């Protein structure tokens, strides 16, 4: 690529690979943690809702780089020496869970109240109502914004540079340090991020539109 050696180019591509891996871990972890949090936000008990909301607000009020540092050095203080990937992944998980929980709360709420009542009339237990009636509909509503948020996750893995984790942004910095071609290097890094993110953004919008249409038609 332009003035870069093959080795340097490969190094950047490898960084892109780590970015994708970190994004996927953050997303999966965030989903596993985010779903119970979303249920907590929509729970019947007010105490549960408030407690969940408080925790989410705390995480959302901390910048991701600080979250990464806190996880990394916190583990150090507790006597662990975590690999940077693990610390970054844990921070990404907490961050993703907080935002996904809020997104999904909206989606669960968007399932019409009547559906709950109809399920009640069928004498389903509340767990069955959730599992068989509400969640399948909520998942459909949630798909476009969740994919949209995945784009945010991918972009925000760039904050793992603060831990010197070898993802795309950090790799680009290193290549820049020994090639001294910042314009080329960061343009390429930006283009790689764009290649990962843009198709997802587009997919998210397309799903949203087609979903909007079926909803219109159902009226």
């Amino acid at each position, binding site marked *: 690529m332009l003035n870069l050696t093959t080795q340097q180019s490969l190094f950047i591509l490898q960084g892109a690979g780590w970015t994708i891996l970190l994004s996927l871990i953050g997303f999966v972890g965030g989903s596993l943690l985010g779903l119970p949090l979303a249920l907590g936000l929509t729970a019947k008990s007010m105490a549960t809702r408030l407690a969940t909301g408080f925790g989410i607000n705390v995480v959302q009020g901390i*910048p*991701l780089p600080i979250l990464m540092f*806190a996880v990394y050095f916190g583990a150090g203080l507790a006597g662990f020496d975590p690999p940077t990937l693990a610390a970054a992944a844990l921070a990404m998980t907490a961050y993703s869970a907080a935002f996904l929980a809020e997104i999904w709360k909206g989606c669960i709420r968007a399932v019409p109240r009547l559906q709950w009542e109809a399920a009640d009339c069928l004498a389903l237990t509340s767990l069955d109502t959730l599992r068989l009636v509400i969640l399948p509909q909520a998942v459909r509503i949630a798909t476009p914004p969740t994919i949209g948020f995945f784009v945010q996750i991918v972009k925000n893995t760039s904050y793992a*540079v603060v831990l010197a984790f070898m993802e795309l942004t950090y790799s*680009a910095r290193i290549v820049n340090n020994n090639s*001294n071609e*910042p314009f080329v290097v*960061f343009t390429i890094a930006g283009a790689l991020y764009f290649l990962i993110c843009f198709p997802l*953004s587009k997919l998210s919008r397309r799903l949203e539109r087609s979903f909007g249409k079926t909803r219109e038609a159902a009226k």
Partner: protein
Amino acid sequence: MAGELDFGFLSDYWPAIAWGVVWTFVMTVASLIPGAAFGVLCALARVYGSPTIARIAAVYVEVIRNTPSLIQAFWLFFGLASLGLRLSPFMAAVLALSINFAAYVGEIIRAGLEATPHGEIEAADCLGLSPLQRITAIELPQAIERVFPALVGQSILMMLSTSIMYQISAEELTGVAWYIQSFTFRSFEIYMIVAALYIGMTGLMRAALSSVGLLVFTRYRRLRTPL
């Protein structure tokens, strides 16, 4: 090597931390204002612009929203310098944050503009208002009102993302924390304190922007409808 928490360094370093808070605030405000203005222009370009102008605005929004702000900052700070345009770290940070904020604000306000009821547009036209008068008096104020909570949320996200700008050595709170921990080695403690400060600033900013909303959108204040 499980350690104990030690906040003793605070007595020496609290002025530096306060300095960091001030600079985070300055950087946020310096990016917020031009970013919001440019975002409004972006939205107007996409909704009312000629096909070419709308297209240019759309490309801008897509490129910015699908690349990390840190890469944009590196590109502006290191990349442009290698081409001979040397920005100060603070300038590069503010520029990166503004163009980022603008792209998101543009999309949010565009959604607000597109929700204008057709009847109001017709009514404004029928009163003889020019398109520009109609947009400034009827469509834009209501669009901003409609999406104000989303704008507050986006502003807070922007404030939080100032924290990465120490990577191009712009002065702000996270940079100060990094500097302190390199002297004191009390990394976890300092980041705990800084995290608490950011949470406080987030709450403060939400309260401040919501008050601005209540001041500007008199209808909400009068009718006590929540923003």
